[in-house]
């Protein structure tokens, strides 16, 4: 593995996250001001103390001006990044490297998305002019991820009814968690009957198998690890940052079976090596993963090494990833119920890690968490970018 990592070189000393949801009253500018303001406040610094910014957004603006204009940032470097649904994580990753390089001492990573102004269902694509033949031009995200379901049940001989139950459990669990989160889009527990009876969107996926389409923003202030305690007595330290962009082979190669994301396996392996993690199941206290659709979360449990191949559906049903389970996953409600404002989601995952590792997660607070993993994915089965980070409450 070529990546050397920057374990314990940088730390997060302030974070902010807006309430996610249908924010009809708030513009992109408003969301940015809200998230950045909260992050600055939590670190106890002023806007002009920040040396550089990275802004992630899929489609709510272009260029660094999308951030510099609403904040009135005066001639500072602001870079806009985009990496599909992993955009927020990409902004964070670049901010960390900017600090680790020694170029800046205070860098803010920001992510924002204003999805609800379009009037359309689901995510929109902004594709370059094309010949009109690519399947992904028409195949929607729920349809693309629904391909996992029949492939998984066929490969492991899982009764489709049991798989459906596991998918339902993921949605049920993430709603239970989201109900305990004041910033979540959907703050309501949903019965298994309601989940299974919902209108179908694609394949066997119903509305409750899909993440929330929402507006929101999140931000993190990154500083050199050795300066972290100048800002807060409870900073969180970056142990690993890994990104893998796949060659999009799965859509071309008959040997790919739609039961795994090779990109996730690569990024997780790399991240564990960077962080020095040898037994992720035992060492990781909580994981925020990319539950864009319920079968995705099931497959991710295997790709991230949280369980053995073909076992995730059983572990899910056994409650191992529930709030009180062996390895709580998406404690904040996940994309499913916290919502998925694309550019903000990766930073939202880190926000939950920040709260949990600092003991500030309120009624969903876990007992003494040490290491948190965030996993953020952009693309679809057959070709995606996958991001994995590991953050911890202690340096060294």
């Amino acid at each position, binding site marked *: 593995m070529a990546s050397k990592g920057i374990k314990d070189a940088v730390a997060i000393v302030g974070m902010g996250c807006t309430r996610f949801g249908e924010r009809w009253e708030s513009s992109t500018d408003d969301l940015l001001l809200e998230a950045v303001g909260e992050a600055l406040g939590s670190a106890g610094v002023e806007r002009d103390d920040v040396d550089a910014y990275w802004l992630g957004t899929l489609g709510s603006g272009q260029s660094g001006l999308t951030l510099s204009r609403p904040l009135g940032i005066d001639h500072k470097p602001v870079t806009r990044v985009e990496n599909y649904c992993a955009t927020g994580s990409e902004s964070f990753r670049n901010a960390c490297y900017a600090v680790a390089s020694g170029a800046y001492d205070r860098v803010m990573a920001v992510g924002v998305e204003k999805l609800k102004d*379009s*009037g*359309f*269902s*689901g995510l*929109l694509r902004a*594709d370059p*002019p*094309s*010949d*009109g*033949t690519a*399947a*992904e*031009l*028409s*195949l*929607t995200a*729920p*349809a*693309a991820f*629904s*391909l996992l379901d*029949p*492939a998984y049940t*066929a490969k492991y001989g899982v009764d489709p009814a049991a798989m459906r139950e596991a998918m339902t459990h993921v949605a049920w669990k993430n709603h239970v968690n989201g109900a305990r989160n004041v910033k979540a889009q959907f703050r309501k527990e949903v019965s298994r009957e309601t989940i299974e009876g919902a209108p*179908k*969107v*694609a*394949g066997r996926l119903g509305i409750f198998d899909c993440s929330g389409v929402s507006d929101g923003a999140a931000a993190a202030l990154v500083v050199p690890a050795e300066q972290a305690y100048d800002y807060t007595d409870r900073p969180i330290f970056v142990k690993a940052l890994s990104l893998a962009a796949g*060659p*999009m*082979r799965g*859509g*071309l*190669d*008959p040997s*790919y*079976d*739609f039961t795994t994301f090779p990109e996730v396996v690569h990024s997780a392996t790399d991240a564990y090596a960077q962080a020095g993690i040898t037994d992720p199941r035992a060492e990781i206290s909580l994981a925020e993963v990319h539950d864009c659709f319920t079968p995705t979360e099931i497959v991710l449990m295997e790709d991230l090494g949280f369980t053995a191949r073909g076992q995730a559906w059983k572990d899910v049903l056994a409650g191992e990833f529930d709030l009180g389970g062996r390895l709580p996953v998406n404690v904040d409600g996940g994309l499913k119920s916290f919502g998925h404002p694309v550019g903000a989601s990766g930073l939202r995952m880190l926000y939950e890690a920040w709260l949990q590792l600092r003991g500030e997660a309120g009624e969903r607070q876990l007992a003494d968490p040490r290491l948190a993993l965030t996993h953020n994915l952009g693309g679809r089965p*057959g070709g995606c970018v996958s991001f994995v980070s590991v953050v911890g409450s202690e340096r060294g």
Partner: protein
Amino acid sequence: MTIGVLAYGAYLPSYRLGADSGVRGRRVVASFDEDATTMAVEAARGLPAPGSLWWASTTPPYLDKTNAAAVHAALRLPSSVPAADLVGSARSTFAALRAALATGGLVVAADVRVGKPGSLDEKGGGDGAAALLLGEGPAIAEVLGSAGDTLELLDRWRDPQRTTGEQWEERFGFEQYAGLVRSVAARLLDDAGLAEADHVVVTSGNAGITKRAGALVKGALSSSGSPIGFSGAADPLLGLAAVLDTAGPDETILVLSAVDGCDGLLLRTTPLLPSHRAARSVAAQLETGREVRYPTYLSWRGLLERELPRRPEPDRPAGPPSYRAGEWKFGFTGSRCTACGFLHLPPLRVCRSCSAVDAMEPESVADLTGKVATFTIDRLAFSPSPPVVDVVVDFEGGGRTTLEVADADPGLIDVGTEVGLVFRRLFTAGNVHNYFWKARVR
């Protein structure tokens, strides 16, 4: 130079107008993703490559742009083969035949005939395509003669801006055409030294003519009109195809088409015919098919506007990328790595298996079959006829790609289902038709 009929083909769409339309019988209707270009491709696929291509239609998907060029591309013909449109009236088919009789060539005619709801055209029309390959070489039928008489007549007409047309009283046209049909038939038979033809096919946009085909000119063995109702430019060739499906060797066939005059073609079949018939007979195609509900059909034709999913309409295909990817988009030609054999659909320059760069050979899999690796029903995607069924297809000779399913019956699709490929129009956006291939259950 002796030009004969070398081969023929016919294509009928698989939908029939539902009983809820009030139309009795099985009115053949093209699916929402079919047009005169896509059906022409289906009729001509599998025929030997021609020296020229003549495409005829009364319902051209484009004007100003040569529709035959897309057919040419989908048939993967060399650029040196000329391709041209003859469009407007159903007579265009005989104009195409006249060109091909002189030099050899492929005549392919196709039409999507639309009538106003409740009209005779809706009830008595038919959608389909047929192809006839003429040239030198071993023929399935010799050409004994051809003729074409012209008559200016206000019998059937259509405003170019409209999809549905108008007719004068049927009996008016019938009386004018009847004499012409008889006289053209007599002249052709006379010139060939025949008293009568074994098979007579009479097609016309005037239903009176086709209803009384046998009475006008009787064949010794058979007399027929259109096999599916008036199918515009496709009609004379579909009628001929249906006869070629069953005729014996050394039998004469007289095809008469009464449209603004009367055209005729007299053929004599050869002993090669029985072993060189079309792979799919007209009758066999007519027998199959399933009903489409009337409101769905009306929405396919733009006669009824339905609520669509809350999704943006797709972007129109762009000219330069479509040009660069032409072999893929129209010919379903991928690239096979010469170093390791991995087949890429669509074509790529860097091998996904062994990373070799620019070591590719083009390879089309348009005529191959494949198996469904996984599938889904997308109820959210934009489509002129939702829901969209998508399949990941693994081809028999290697290669995988994701395609929409044509004429989809979701109940028939499962992992492992065998599919072939058909040329269709995915959607139309910004007045551009997005032609590409779809999977179809075999």
